[in-house]
């Protein structure tokens, strides 16, 4: 075949350019350390790189979540441990008080220590996390969960439990509501709680407070029904004075004939073994609820024993004294077992996230490995490829020079 001089030249130079391009490409791969520099180098690999990076990012995120969860769980565990210690001490004190040889002074000292422990317990159940969130307030993490005003101990949190995502589709609770651990504690016998309904005249500020249980059997019989106290118009009372009616919540029936009872501020009212008191200036239409319950928060239980030890004389009121200690011990025991249960659940969660973390670490290594295989360069291969390509380039250059130097004109 005829070869034109220009063709000879062009072929040589385009070959040089092509080899030069390959050398440059290899050189770029080596300098970046990447096999896939742009998607076109390996389209499927490029998509896998996106996916693997995603997986690595997610797992790193989950590990970060696990660290945060672990810190929160550990903190709760410490606080719960302290709660158990305090409870054990209060239990010892209560048992000590039940000992018949104690003098009234001894009991007063015991009551004083229980009061001190009560304060300690209060600060524990109102513990805050490092960021200022209350640990046991549920979702209301900026609201102090247990508030004490006068005789009233109130739980202001909710039943929320915050979760953290530790793996795809796997969530672990990192907070426990104080309601579960400290409030919903089964009592030995039904007790009651009081509250004003929203919608009462706030300005007048009538309040209801709990005085005492006067008849345990009567409450037990009435349980689980509740009472509703509603203030009626003065016109319904023969003397035209402020008056109220007490009804059962379940069916609205008037209880013990307490219909349009004249109201005296601050006087205590005893219905079905429950003694409570309404203060202030209730307005017509104000309503208060007296709820029977077989649950009581631990702060109230401790508070009651501290008060009762000073108030109830074991000699003159042996039954009341025995009931007080019996209720207290039941409340303490139930709380301790509830707290231990919560700690066990914490431990289980910590184990779960620990093994999840290990899983993440393992899978991260594997993904890292795969990513490296897909994306990163095999240096040995690349370097030998580069040296082969430079060899080719050199050979092409030399042969080009040699061939283009051949000309018949040189011989003329």
């Amino acid at each position, binding site marked *: 075949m005829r070869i034109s001089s220009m063709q000879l030249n062009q072929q040589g130079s385009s070959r040089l350019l092509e080899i030069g391009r390959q050398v440059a490409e290899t050189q770029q791969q080596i300098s970046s350390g990447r096999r896939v520099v742009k998607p076109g180098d390996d389209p499927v690999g490029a998509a896998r790189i996106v996916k693997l990076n995603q997986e690595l990012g997610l797992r790193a995120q989950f590990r970060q979540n696990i660290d945060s969860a672990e810190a929160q769980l550990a903190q709760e565990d410490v606080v719960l441990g302290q709660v158990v210690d305090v409870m054990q001490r209060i239990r010892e004190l209560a048992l000590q008080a039940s000992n018949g040889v104690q003098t009234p002074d001894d009991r007063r000292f015991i009551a004083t220590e229980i009061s001190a422990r009560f304060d300690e317990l209060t600060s524990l159940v109102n513990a805050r996390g490092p960021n200022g969130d209350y640990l046991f307030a549920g979702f209301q*993490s*900026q609201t102090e969960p247990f508030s004490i005003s006068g005789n009233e101990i109130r739980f202001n949190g909710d039943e929320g439990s915050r979760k953290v995502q530790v793996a795809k589709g796997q969530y672990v609770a990192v907070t426990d509501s104080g309601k579960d651990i400290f409030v919903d504690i089964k009592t030995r016998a039904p007790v009651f709680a009081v509250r004003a309904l929203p919608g009462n005249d706030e300005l007048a500020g009538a309040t209801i407070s709990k005085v005492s249980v006067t008849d345990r059997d009567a409450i037990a019989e009435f349980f689980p029904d509740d009472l509703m106290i509603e203030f009626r118009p003065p016109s319904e009372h023969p003397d035209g004075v402020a008056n109220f009616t007490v009804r059962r919540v379940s069916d609205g029936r008037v209880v013990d004939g307490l219909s349009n009872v004249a109201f005296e501020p601050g006087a205590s009212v005893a219905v079905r073994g429950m003694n409570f008191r309404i203060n202030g200036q209730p307005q017509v239409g104000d309503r208060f609820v007296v709820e029977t319950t077989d649950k009581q928060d631990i702060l109230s239980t401790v508070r009651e024993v501290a008060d009762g030890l000073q108030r109830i004389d074991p000699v003159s009121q042996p039954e009341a004294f025995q009931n007080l200690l019996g209720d207290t011990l039941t409340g303490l025991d139930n709380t301790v077992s509830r707290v231990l249960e919560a700690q066990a659940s914490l431990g289980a969660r910590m184990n779960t996230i620990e093994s999840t973390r290990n899983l993440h670490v393992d899978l991260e290594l594997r993904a890292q490995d795969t990513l490296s295989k897909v994306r990163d360069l095999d240096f040995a291969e690349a370097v030998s490829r580069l040296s082969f390509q430079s060899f080719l380039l050199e050979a092409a250059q030399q042969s080009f020079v040699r061939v283009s130097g051949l000309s018949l004109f040189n011989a003329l």
Partner: protein
Amino acid sequence: MANLFNIGVSGLRAQQAALAVTGQNITNASTPGYTRQRVDIQAQAAGARGGDFEGSGARLERIERVTDDFATNQVRVDTALFSELDTLTQQIQQIEATLLDENGGLDSALQGFFGALQLASNNPSDLPTRQLVISQAENLAQRFNGIHDRLNDQYANVTSVLESSAARVNELTRGISELNYRIAGLRSEESTGALNGLLDQREEMLRELSTFVSVSVSEQQDQQVNVFIGKGQAIVLGASASILEVTAQGEIALRSDARSERQIITSALQGGEMGGAMTFRDQVLTPAINQLGRIALAVSAEVNQAHAGGVDLNGDRGGLIFADLNAPEFARLRAVADEGNENPNPGAISVRIDDPTAVAVSDYELVFAEDAPGAFYVRRLSDRQQVFQGRIEGEFPQTLSFDNLTVTLEKGDFQPGDKYYLRPLRSAAGSFRTVIDNPALLALAGPLRVQEALGNRGEAVVRIGEVFDQSHPIFADDGALTPPLLIRFTSATSYDVLDNSDPGNPRQLVPPLRNLSYDPGQLNQMLPAQAGAQLVVFDGIQTGALPDAATILPAGGTLGNGYSSQVLTATRRDPATGSVLSSQSVDFTAGSSAREIAARLSGVSGVTATAFTEVRLSELNSNGSGTPLAVVIDGVDLGSVRSLDELADRIGSDPQLRDLGVRASSDGATLTLTDLQGDDLQIQVAGDPTDSLRVTGLHGDGLVLNGAGPGNAYRSIAVGGQVSANLAADLTLSSPSGGVMQSAPRHLRADFGFGLTMSGTPEAGDTFSVDYNQDGVGDNRNGLRMAGLLTDPVLGSPPLSFSDSYGQLVQFVGVQSSQNQINRDAASSLLEQSTGRKESISGVNLDEEAANLIRYEQAYNASAQIISVARQIFDTLFSVVR
């Protein structure tokens, strides 16, 4: 002898010409487009001499261009192919690195944003962590905008490539047509040297033309050529050339001269730089921009939607995190009028994307027919399918729905032949913006909370489920649930859902959700769990009606409830079109109890019916002279009673009635008697005529039953119950005649837009209140839900997660790149081969020319020797004569 002289001279002339051609070849050895020439020297014949003929020297016949039409044409074809693929590859390479940039790609920004949501969820009340979410959202927006801008710049670059190519094509075609003219003129004079130069020039121009666009060339008798592009559109015809243009919308148009009509040839044009640029624009770049746009739309829509379902630190419901890409100002930018549309009042069109996760990755064309005024069709450009056909109805706005898009023709004149480009996704990634700026407004908390009453005795676990309809009226007010709900268990296996607006006195809802059943063994959906679930209450005139007068019966005798027979039809309709899909009828015999009706109805698919019977007793008058009033309920003799409270207590403590599901509650003035299973309630009284009891059913003031005097005679009535039917959203219930159910009963919405599940063992009287999540600053439920969107497969079909969808985009561009790289390399070697073939025919080989030089020089010298020999012969002859 003179002949010998002549022969020598002719040789000299011929060799001289040959040397000149060789010199021409040598000097043009590197001239592009030069075709090597060859002299054609022929022996000159002469007259007869004696019996033989004698030659009379050599003659230059012609200077020949050594060329081969087939090889030339093949070079043009391969040039067009290579140049197309080369342009395509280069263009793709300019965008692909942007997509797989570890710091500049979209995946790392997505990761950053959703990771920040995770962090904020770990610590929802912490403002600095919340701020991080916002800065990551801004980073994500910048990344979307950055990639979009990069791709858009490339789009502008393609347009300018097309425009400059078209300009060069026009120069070339004008040059070719001029050469055609000159070649046709020269032919007659037969000056082959000049002709060869012109042919070379034209051939080189044709080759260059084929680097811009694929051409086919046909040579005419007079050596002029006609050039065609696309599907036979002439661009050069003899001495005239057409003009190629690029329209504002990027279409390629052809017109035969400056005044003539434009012809759009976009889809026909192929090959060359223009073909490559258009393939890149239409097959790679536009789909890539659209796919990125769809991801942007889906991210903003999904995140915004989840966010709107949450509550922020101030207790308000979540607003927008990202700009709403379906807002009218964006919707209007998505339709572009063609520049050829009739003026002066072009139509305004807006395009709304109904479901960003399901919309097709394509542009559309809305075209008005030339021949039928008002008729138009819409074509999807990805597969060129017609997806909608319609006509202007005359009133604006007119809306069209197809492919998850709602297109609104807002106003203006839509003329026959008008064309609009609908680009739903084109600008989305560029419009992606973060609008939230206050970290406290990040709605990480869930909107609801549920609380268990203090006095509950059961062990039930209740959980708020997903909010599936944020636009439900219950969420209408910020900071409150209207109304708050109360779930009250009436037994261990049944409950009511009540309106808890007044916690002292919870009321029945409208429509009432009463006596729903609960299974302690499993997870229960406590509220209708389907958006649009409906409730139909059977409150026809016969329901719970009392007879006109009481019947006298012995204690324990039975009466019917007086219900007539009725046929009920459940009809299932397509929610979009309203057409009937199926219907199922149930008929009841006269006197069926509510319980039986409910059981039959529950057999219809999509219907769950419950029944209960309720009667109120009041005005008990039992102070007559002799014995007090005696009452028998459902055949159970309760003896004489003096007050409603006493009666209620007796009913409550009777084991037989309790087993029947009969409950009573009295507040002293009214006793409400309920049968939870919906059986008929039969009430019988006996006593003195002055003793009486008022019985009230669902309708009217009721009936006073008074004693029938001494003896075993009881005044008796039976009252039937009511049925509530829960219907799926697409069902309606009807009946040809009124009866237990009205013929056209009211269908009321029964769901609350959210789900609530409960498991465990509640007890009668247990209550759970559902309220707005006020002050829930430690709640992260919505934050977790939003963070989970990263890996949720939501986009496209089969659904992919956001980042997988982006991975798909990277892969798409990568496949295009590598595929075209391979094709380009193949085309390159094809071009090399065909060029080589052409060169081997037409190219100059210097060695060959050097050899020719020697050859022709020697021949020249030899011819000179002939003259010298002739002269010597002549001299010899002269000397002999002298």
